[in-house]
C-alpha cells in the first residue's frame, strides 16, 4: 500500500532539512502526549478546538495511550495524516514513561510525515503556574531515590514562556542552595515528598498547588505554540525526538562482578 507524499527525508549524507515552520499555529492540528508520571495526559488541537484525556493511570500508559488517542481523533474528526505536529513530554520523568511517549510520538509523526516538538516536563509545569499569574517559579518533580528533578524559572514581560535559570538538575533537595523570593511559586509533585530540605527552604511554609503537580498535555501544547511563534523554536525530525533523563547514573545494579 502506498502512502501520502512524505517528503521529509534525510539527504544522501543523512542530514535532515530544517522543518518549515508554518505561520498558522492557531489552526494547526497538534497532538500532545505526556506519560512521564502517573498521569496519562493527551491533548489534541484540531480545527481550533481542543480534545483532552487526562487521567491518573499508573503503569497503564502503553495500554491506554493509542486507544485514547484514536478516540480523540475520532471526536475531532481528523485523521493521523492530518497532523501538523506532535508534542511530547521529553522528560525528565519516569524512564519508561518518557520512552513510551517518545516512541509513540516518533511512530505517529513518522507515519504522519510531520515533525515532533520535545517539551521539557519541568518547563511545562512552570508554564501551568505562569498561566495562573506566577512570575518566579520553582519546579520540583519527584525523581524517587530521595531526589528531585528541579529547575527555576522566571517570567518576564508579557510572555508566558518560563525562562530557565541555570539548568535542569536531578539532585537531593538538601543540595539546593538558592533562596526563593517572597513571591516565588512552588509547583511540581516534588514538594509533596518528605525528602530532607535545605535550611532556607525548611524554614519556609511552602504551599504548592496540588493541581500544578504534574505536566498537562494541553498546557505543553499551548507552551509549544508560544515557543514556536514567539521564540522561533523549531520542531525536529521524529528520529531526533529523544528523551532527556537528567539522571544518567543507571548502572549501579550491574557493576562488573570481580572474580565471578
Amino acid at each position, binding site marked *: 500500500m*502506498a502512502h501520502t507524499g*512524505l517528503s521529509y527525508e534525510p539527504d544522501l549524507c543523512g542530514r535532515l532539512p530544517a522543518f518549515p515552520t508554518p505561520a498558522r499555529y492557531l489552526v494547526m492540528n497538534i497532538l500532545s502526549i505526556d506519560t512521564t508520571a502517573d498521569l496519562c495526559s493527551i491533548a489534541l488541537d484540531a480545527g481550533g478546538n481542543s480534545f483532552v484525556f487526562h487521567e491518573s493511570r499508573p503503569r497503564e500508559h*502503553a495500554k491506554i495511550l493509542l486507544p485514547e488517542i484514536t478516540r480523540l481523533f475520532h471526536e475531532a474528526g481528523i485523521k493521523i495524516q492530518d497532523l501538523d505536529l506532535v508534542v511530547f513530554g521529553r522528560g525528565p520523568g519516569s524512564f519508561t514513561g518518557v520512552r513510551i511517549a517518545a*516512541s*509513540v510520538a*516518533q511512530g505517529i509523526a513518522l507515519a504522519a510525515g510531520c515533525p515532533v516538538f520535545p517539551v521539557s516536563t519541568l518547563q511545562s509545569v512552570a508554564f501551568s503556574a505562569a498561566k495562573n499569574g506566577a512570575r518566579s517559579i520553582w519546579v520540583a518533580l519527584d525523581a524517587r531515590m530521595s531526589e528531585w528533578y528541579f529547575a527555576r524559572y522566571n517570567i518576564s514581560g508579557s510572555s508566558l514562556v518560563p525562562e530557565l535559570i541555570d539548568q535542569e538538575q536531578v539532585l537531593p533537595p538538601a543540595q539546593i542552595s538558592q533562596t526563593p523570593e517572597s513571591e516565588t511559586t512552588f509547583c511540581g509533585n516534588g514538594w509533596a515528598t518528605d525528602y530532607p530540605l535545605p535550611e532556607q527552604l525548611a524554614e519556609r511554609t511552602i504551599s504548592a498547588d496540588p493541581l500544578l503537580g504534574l505536566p498537562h498535555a494541553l498546557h505543553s501544547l499551548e507552551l509549544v505554540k508560544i515557543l514556536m511563534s514567539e521564540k522561533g523554536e523549531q520542531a525536529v525530525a521524529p528520529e531526533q525526538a529523544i528523551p532527556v533523563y537528567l539522571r544518567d547514573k543507571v548502572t549501579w545494579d550491574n557493576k*562488573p562482578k570481580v572474580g565471578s
Partner: protein
Amino acid sequence: MRVLGIESSCDETGVAIYDSEQGLMAHQLYSQVKMHAEFGGVVPELASRDHIRKLAPMIRGVFTDAGLEFGDVDGIAYTAGPGLVGALMVGASMGRSLAMGWGVPAIAVHHMEGHLLAPMLEEQPPEYPFVALLVSGGHTMLVDVSAPGCYRILGETLDDAAGEAFDKTAKMMGLPYPGGPLLSQKADQGVKGVFEFPRPMIDRPGMDFSFSGLKTAVRLAIARHAVDEVVEEQIQADIACGFQQAVIETLAIKCRRALRETGHKTLVIAGGVSANKSLRTALHAMCKKERARVFYARPEFCTDNGAMIAYAGWLRLKAGQQSSLKVEVKARWPLDELEPINV
C-alpha cells in the same frame, strides 16, 4: 503481503522488511554489545536508551535499502516478549503507533517463535512437523512443532541456558563479554578427551537440561590448573573443548530422544548457540543415524534480528491475526501459550 519487523527485546536493535513474493527485502541490525561489555553483561536501562536512539533511523533505513517508498508495507510485526520490558516497550510502542498511523494491522510477536522460524528464511526451509532445539542466551528448550504455531514444550533448562553457560564459562577464562563465540573458537584449538566433564542429565529420562553442574566442574578444573591465577593457553583450549563437547553431546542426546519420542524426521536448531559449528556437525551426525534432517539459519540470523520477527509476524498476519491498540509487553511468555496459525 509485505511486513516490517522490529526487534528490541535485549541488546540488539533489528529492523527488516519481509515480502511473501520477494522474500527478505532488507534488514538492518545494530548490536549494543560493545556498550554493555564494560559492565560484563546487559544493563537494561542502557539497552532501552539505545533502542530509542537507533530505531527510527533504522526503520527509515530499511525502506531505503529495499527501494520502497516509506510506509509501503501491509503490516508491522514487533517483538512483545519475552525479554527486557523497558527495551521491548520501545520497539512495541513505536511499531504499534506506526501501524496505527499507516492504517495497517500490527502483530505482537513472541521472540522465541521468531528464533524458531528463522530457518524458514533460508533457501531450503524445513517442513512441518519438526522438533525444534532453541538454544540462545536466555533459553534452552526442545519443542514439538506439529504445525505452524502449535508448540509443545518437550524439555527446558532447569538452570542456565546453553548460551549463558557458554558466556559464564568464557568469563571464568577471562574472555570478554559475551564470550560464547570466543570460547567456541578456543575450543577448536583444544584436544578432545583431555578433559572429560559430566554430561548433565543424560542418564535421566525426559528432555530437560541442566548446565550449572557442568559450570562448577569447569570452574574446579580451571582452579586446579591455574599457576599464579593463570592457566596455560593450551590447557585453556583443552578445557574449553571439554566443556563444548559436554554441552554438545548433551544437546545431541536430548535431540535424539525428542526425535524418537515424536517420530518427527526433521530437527530445526535456532538461537545464538545454533551458530556453533561443532554443534551443527554433531547434530548432522546424529540425524544421519536417525534418518532425519537438520535445518538451521545462516549465522547472522541465529542471534537476534528483525528478519525473523518480520517473518513470524507475516505468518500470523497472513492468517488474519492481529494485535489491538493496547501495547502489552511481557518479560515472561510461555511459548506454548501462543495461538495456532491457520494456514
